[in-house]
């Protein structure tokens, strides 16, 4: 299992289009991918799940990937987050 912590620095938090793109990215992998914020964990492949977390600017999230392509998944997601959402 892969696990990584990120801080969301985007002005809009995990709300807008970049969040949609992140969900799309996660959907490309077969691994089970989850995102956790303030103790609540949801499926990163679910746009409604992700948005219901209500992560704002400065929020910390933990992403886990578990499955055959977990390494590739985590790498792609890390890139996606660093590009638009945070660090």
């Amino acid at each position: 299992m892969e696990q990584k912590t990120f801080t969301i620095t985007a002005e809009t938090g995990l709300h807008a289009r970049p969040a949609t793109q992140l969900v799309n990215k996660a959907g490309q992998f077969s691994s089970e991918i989850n995102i956790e914020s303030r103790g609540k964990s949801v499926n990163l492949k679910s746009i409604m799940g992700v948005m219901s977390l209500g992560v704002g600017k400065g929020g910390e999230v933990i992403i886990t990937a578990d499955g055959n392509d977990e390494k590739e998944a985590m790498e792609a997601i890390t890139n996606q987050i660093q590009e638009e959402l945070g660090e």
Partner: protein
Amino acid sequence: MAEHIQGIAASDGVAIGKAFLLEQPELDIQKETVANAEDELENFQAAVANAGKELEAIRAKTLEQQGEENAEIFSAHLLVLEDPEMLGAVETKVKDEHITASYALHEVSSMYIDMFENMDNEYMRERAADIKDVSQRILMHLAGVENTSLTATDEEVIILSHDLTPSDTAQLDRQYTLGFVTNIGGRTSHSAIMARSLEIPAVVGTKDMTSRVQSGDLLIVDGGTGELVIDPDEATMDTYRERQREHEAKKEAQKKLVGEPSISADGQRVELAANIGTPNDMKGVLENGAEGIGLYRTEFLYMGRDSLPEEDEQFEAYRSVVEKMNGAPVVIRTLDIGGDKELPYLDLPEELNPFLGFRALRLCLENTEMFRTQLRALLRASNYGNLKIMFPMVATLEELRSAKALLQEEKSRLHEEGAAVGEAVEVGIMVEIPSTAVAATQFAKEVDFFSIGTNDLVQYTLAADRMSERVAHLYQPYHPAVLQLIKNVIDASHAEGKWTGMCGEMAGETTAIPLLLGLGLDEFSMSASSILPARSQLATLNVTVARELAERALTCGTADEVEKIVHEHV
């Protein structure tokens, strides 16, 4: 029995065909149990798959006909449709509680809709609307109800609807839409403007047409007069077929004017330009032979998003328009937000009287960082063609001077950075506040051009809110006071060797054109679809006669008298 109804003429042309009532059926969803949960799950999965195919098709069609931006609406819908959390929750409910998939979906989607609707974030509230749309689509498949989606029709129809929203219009298929009719709206409402730009005959403001007509009824729509006929007899059909032929013939004749100059019968040249909102509108502009862009409304770049557009993004949009016009003038108006147009992410204070409040240039002069970004993008784009900058809502000379100072600062900065900026970019103002129209002589010394925004000028001059139906009769573009202000502005610019344009709806109206020609207007900017009719009308006018007409109009007592003498003349 033929029935005649009068609505508001919104888009010229005659349509004869079957009515198609566009409405979302109210689905009655009750909590019911199912004997076999496995079967119900299969039904659900099939409904989701069908909805997905439908959405894919709509998305592809939208992408092809209207481009990426509108197609994105349906990409978002697909994402919701495929959402594993939502699908999973519905499936679990069906399995565990043995309830119908419809009821389970209704419960799950309502939960999300409630959650998103209550969030303090415009973007999230829009997503609630997406979830509603998508679950409605699945529910209709589950119920086996025919989906009266705009794209589901494959025969030519006249669409009837209470109103047409932007997302409805994104789905409108030009090929199958003969015309449309709405219960609400006026000549300047979204649906009417859209109909004119798509050149679809339309009548709006019919109040209750959707309850008088059923899908399949034969209908005539005359978008030129606002007349509707339900169940016409043969003789009536013939009359309207004749009108249809006349209209088509007129349009054909006008098509020949695409590359021609705009010139009156006695040789007076004017410029007929187009109003646009986004670079996507350029197709219509070029097809209709516009000689320039008289108004590029930049606020669409700022709308429907969560943060301000960056300099490069703006630069690309401006540059693409300027380049496509190939040296012809392009007047770009700086951000005109506030009033009826809001930007949630700017967090503007609510005002009692937003039209007289913190909007347009007033907002930009306070929010200088945002304004400077736009000015820089404009200056950089000016290097690629004939770009002119226009400030909206100027009430005082101080405002104009402040805006020009900021522009000058950014120009110097760009020079220092080594960025290319067009030579001698003209700077003008929109004249829409009476103070500026009255003091036009003073303003004319400090601008390169004026463009009269009649939509606001009329509402401020007569103190009549153009959105309020109760005072609609006071919103009078032909009021002699408005004509006097227009004359004052044109004369003041000419005295300084400058020019005046007009970019309100009025500039494209048959009644207004002879008056404006007579008053000496240099540039008429209108919806692209009005350009060819205007050019053909202009060719029949005589400027010396138009001048006399304008002089007589200025001495009239009422707007009605003005319209009367113009109609007698043309």
